[in-house]
């Protein structure tokens, strides 16, 4: 039987060993954080809670009571963290408004915890509910803070904007993404589906003058600052439009820098080196690692590998220390489209501390991860992250895959089995690579590891 203390310690350990989480905490403690950081803080906390709760839920001595306490801990922690960040931002702007904190959603949590003791469903359903439900409730702590304070500050005389940035999780989220002046946002701007990772923050630092007695005009004694128009308008494409746009964009490379006349080179593995070497590419890695040394090492590794293998189907790999950024090992693939590790390297991966190594390799055809990429990543607890950098600039990341494969089946592992199922579903309405990407999304959510396309 597991108790509150054991579950609490497991969650805290998960958080304290996460390099990205530690980086965010340092920024918060240093007074340099923004709501983008607190949103990420909430997301990482949600994942740690949901994963550990799902793993232990069936063994909890008091399933409803312990779950409620764990959720209350996270809710209050995220609220107080947001309040700290708000105070630091206000101090810099000379604003003196106390951050508002939302009450714990007792009724909602009760409904959720009650669903975990439902005797009519199988254990696998209880575990899935535990993961998805706790993830959503913990993330809502951040959304509730944002909503409460945006409303309060708007009423207090500050010009507020609600900003929702999509995470490519679905069409609906993409349709509501944008920057809205407070009062003009869609009614369901704060709505989330299960496993939604959209970022919702507000920008409310601009004083617009005290409301006059007529309730309409504002006092111009304070400096008037003009309204900032919303800059972000998401554009949605149909599949046909997207293909046509891709074709016309790639057209400018044909015949200009063709490698197909050179032995061993192929245009289909041609890298977009202008983009790869740009700051926009480096931004894909910003804030994702323990420190700038590691971040720079990962970016450099991607650039070096792609430059070395530009126009070929050969792969290379760097194994990088996740705390210092130092290169531990470097491999050149001897066959096309793959990397083979030496026994010495495998032994090192087996013996190294948990979450201490980052593996970076290239995908010449810019495809998402293969099932072998996942299976190998999931074998080693020392692998903090596995990265596949496509020659077109796409970057794919696995984290926390160790131990998530499940039982071995006749055709691989349970996780790979789920991937095959998801692929058959997603390929119907998507291209091959998009279907593979969505399939990893489905499997990572179901099995509790982190997957990201940047």
């Amino acid at each position, binding site marked *: 039987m597991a108790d509150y203390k054991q579950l609490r310690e497991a969650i805290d350990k998960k958080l304290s060993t996460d390099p990205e989480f530690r980086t965010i905490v340092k920024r918060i403690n240093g007074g340099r954080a923004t709501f983008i950081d607190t949103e990420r803080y909430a997301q990482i906390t949600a994942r740690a809670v949901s994963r550990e709760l799902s793993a232990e839920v069936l063994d909890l001595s008091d399933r409803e009571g312990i779950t409620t306490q764990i959720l209350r801990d996270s809710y209050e922690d995220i609220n107080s963290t947001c309040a700290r960040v708000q105070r630091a931002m206000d101090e810099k702007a000379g604003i003196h408004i106390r951050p508002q904190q939302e009450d714990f959603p007792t009724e909602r949590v009760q409904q959720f915890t009650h669903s975990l003791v439902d005797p009519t469903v199988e254990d696998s359903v209880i575990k899935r509910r535990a993961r998805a439900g706790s993830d959503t409730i913990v993330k809502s702590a951040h959304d509730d803070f944002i909503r409460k304070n945006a409303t309060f500050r708007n009423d207090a005389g500050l010009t507020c904007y609600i900003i929702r940035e999509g995470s490519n999780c679905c069409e609906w989220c993409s349709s509501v993404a944008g920057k809205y002046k407070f009062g003009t946002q869609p009614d369901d701007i704060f709505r989330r589906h299960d496993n939604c990772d959209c970022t919702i923050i507000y920008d409310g630092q601009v004083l617009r003058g005290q409301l006059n007695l007529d309730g309409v005009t504002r006092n111009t004694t304070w400096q008037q600052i003009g309204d900032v128009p919303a800059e972000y308008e998401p554009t949605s494409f149909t599949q046909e439009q997207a293909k046509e746009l891709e074709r016309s964009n790639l057209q400018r490379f044909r015949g200009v820098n063709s490698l197909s006349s050179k032995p061993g080179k192929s245009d289909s593995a041609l890298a977009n080196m202008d983009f790869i070497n740009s700051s926009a590419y480096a931004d894909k890695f910003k804030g994702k690692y323990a420190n700038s040394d590691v971040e720079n090492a990962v970016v450099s590794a991607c650039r070096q590998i792609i430059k070395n293998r530009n126009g070929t189907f050969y792969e290379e790999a760097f194994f990088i220390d996740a705390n210092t950024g130092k290169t531990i090992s470097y491999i050149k693939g001897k066959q096309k*489209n793959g990397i083979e590790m030496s026994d010495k390297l495998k032994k090192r991966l087996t013996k190294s501390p948990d979450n201490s190594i980052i593996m970076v390799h290239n*995908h010449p055809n810019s495809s998402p991860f293969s099932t072998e990429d996942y299976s190998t990543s999931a074998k080693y607890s020392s692998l903090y992250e596995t990265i596949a950098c496509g020659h077109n600039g796409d970057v794919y990341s696995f984290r926390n895959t160790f131990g998530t494969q499940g039982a071995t089946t006749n055709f691989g592992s349970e996780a790979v*089995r789920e991937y095959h*199922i998801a*692929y058959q579903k997603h390929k*119907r309405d998507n291209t091959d690579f998009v279907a593979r990407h969505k399939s990893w999304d489905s499997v990572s959510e179901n099995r509790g590891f982190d997957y990201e396309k940047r």
Partner: protein
Amino acid sequence: MKKDKMDFDDTETADDLNKAFVDEFGDLSDDEIDELYQNTFGKTAQ
């Protein structure tokens, strides 16, 4: 029998993924695939 693969093997094609599915589950209809997806992931695709 599983063929030898590299540790990080990226030779997998769409045909390979389709064949792997058929080898394990047989040739299922779209409705049967939907049901299998629903039973596996507990939701419809988004």
